[in-house]
């Protein structure tokens, strides 16, 4: 049993490294996209915010697995050359789109949680709407966004397990390969995989809870 741990650990760690890579790229791209969507939804007009609301509902209403299959299998069927995605970009793009819906809701809730008096006071000192958003509202809203972003990061980490089905050798896939080499130690290998996920997610969850006590948090619409 100790042998098996010794032999499979490097495989699993290589898988964990890919999981980390995907989740880091995704949190960056997904947050940026989500930030833009959330901001546009707050400050944009009726047409913009309805369209973006539909975008969020469409992505929230379908499983991530379906997004992944649509981006990996359906987009190439359009025949457009730049939509023929490899597995890795397909995984990162679909996860980022999925993440952006969560981030957009957080951004909107945080901006709306900043008291109206703040932006009114800023406007009355002669700031433009943009200035008041940039110098007064956003700095306060950003703090409120930090704790729920920890939760989103954990959702991404767990979401990366699903991209194993399009053949990316991340942690779950590495675990599957290892079970094929040592079928008798299946329980042990899946247990190790689960432990590695735990080791990655648990500190993030703790950090998020610490941030929540420090900065306070926003209540998200469910």
């Amino acid at each position, binding site marked *: 049993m100790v042998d098996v741990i010794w032999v499979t650990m490097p495989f699993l760690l290589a898988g964990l490294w890919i999981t980390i890579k995907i989740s880091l790229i995704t949190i960056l791209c997904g947050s940026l996209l989500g930030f833009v969507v959330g901001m546009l939804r707050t400050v944009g007009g009726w047409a913009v915010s309805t369209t973006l609301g539909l975008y969020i*509902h*469409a992505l*929230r*209403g*379908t*499983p*991530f*697995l*379906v997004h992944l*299959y*649509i981006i990996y*299998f*359906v987009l190439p*069927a*359009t025949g457009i050359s730049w939509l023929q995605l490899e597995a890795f970009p397909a995984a990162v793009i679909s996860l980022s789109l999925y993440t952006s819906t969560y981030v957009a809701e957080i951004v909107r809730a945080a901006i709306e949680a900043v008291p109206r008096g703040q932006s009114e006071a800023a406007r009355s000192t002669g700031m433009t709407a943009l200035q008041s958003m940039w110098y007064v509202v956003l700095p306060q809203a950003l703090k409120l966004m930090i704790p729920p972003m920890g939760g989103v990061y*954990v959702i991404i*980490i*767990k*979401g*990366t*397990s*699903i991209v*194993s*089905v399009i053949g990316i050798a991340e942690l*779950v896939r590495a*675990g599957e390969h290892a*079970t094929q080499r040592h079928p008798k130690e*299946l*329980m042990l290998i*899946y*247990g190790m*995989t*689960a432990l590695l*996920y*735990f080791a*990655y*997610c*648990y500190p993030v*969850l703790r950090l998020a809870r610490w941030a929540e006590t420090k900065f306070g948090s926003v209540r998200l619409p*469910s």
Partner: protein
Amino acid sequence: MDWILDFYNYRVAIQYAPEFARGISATIWISLVSLVLALTIGTAAAIMRMSANPVLWRISAGYVQAIRSTPLLIQIYVIYFSLPALPLLGRRLDELEGGIIALGLNAGAYMSEIIRAGIESISRGQIEGAQSVGMTYLQRMRYVVLPQAFANVLPPLLGQTAVLIKDSSLVSFIGVFELFGAGLTVLSERLMPNEAFLTVAVCYLAIYWVMLIFSNFAQRRLGGVRR
């Protein structure tokens, strides 16, 4: 019109309509059974988490942490592949049972946190009032605390149910037939990913839309009950 048929041949989708319909009903059925399981586990875990007994609340807290920091896919694999024959059943779980138990355990952890918030939102006076009319602990929970707690947290519970319905797509990987499995069937039989997965997406959206209507209705009905 040819380019539409090229990209999305609705005739294939119609031909497979019975398959998709079976998929939708399987998804709803699996989600309902998992939901009942999750609510049971969630309520038990929430009550255990609030107990003064350190063993009880540690077990509950550990369960919630373990579920929250591992992916559902791994939980499904562990439960389906790794559980040895159960003494009660005398055999291994089949894929449907394994999938439902994994989904129920997963959603139960998230729901226990929501239900705990609901129980904590009940004011002390309610419990004292129930005590003063001579109710036992179980009676207090059953008739006074839990009904109000569930009414208070119905919106987040419905949100978690929507997540559960979406998550149920993952059990297709251990061979359970449901909506996503119907899409996989079309893909493997006709090699038509567009007809398969765009239709699946629309079906999931339809389920989600019904959930939204139901959730708005429930919130309006319970508007008076909330604090």
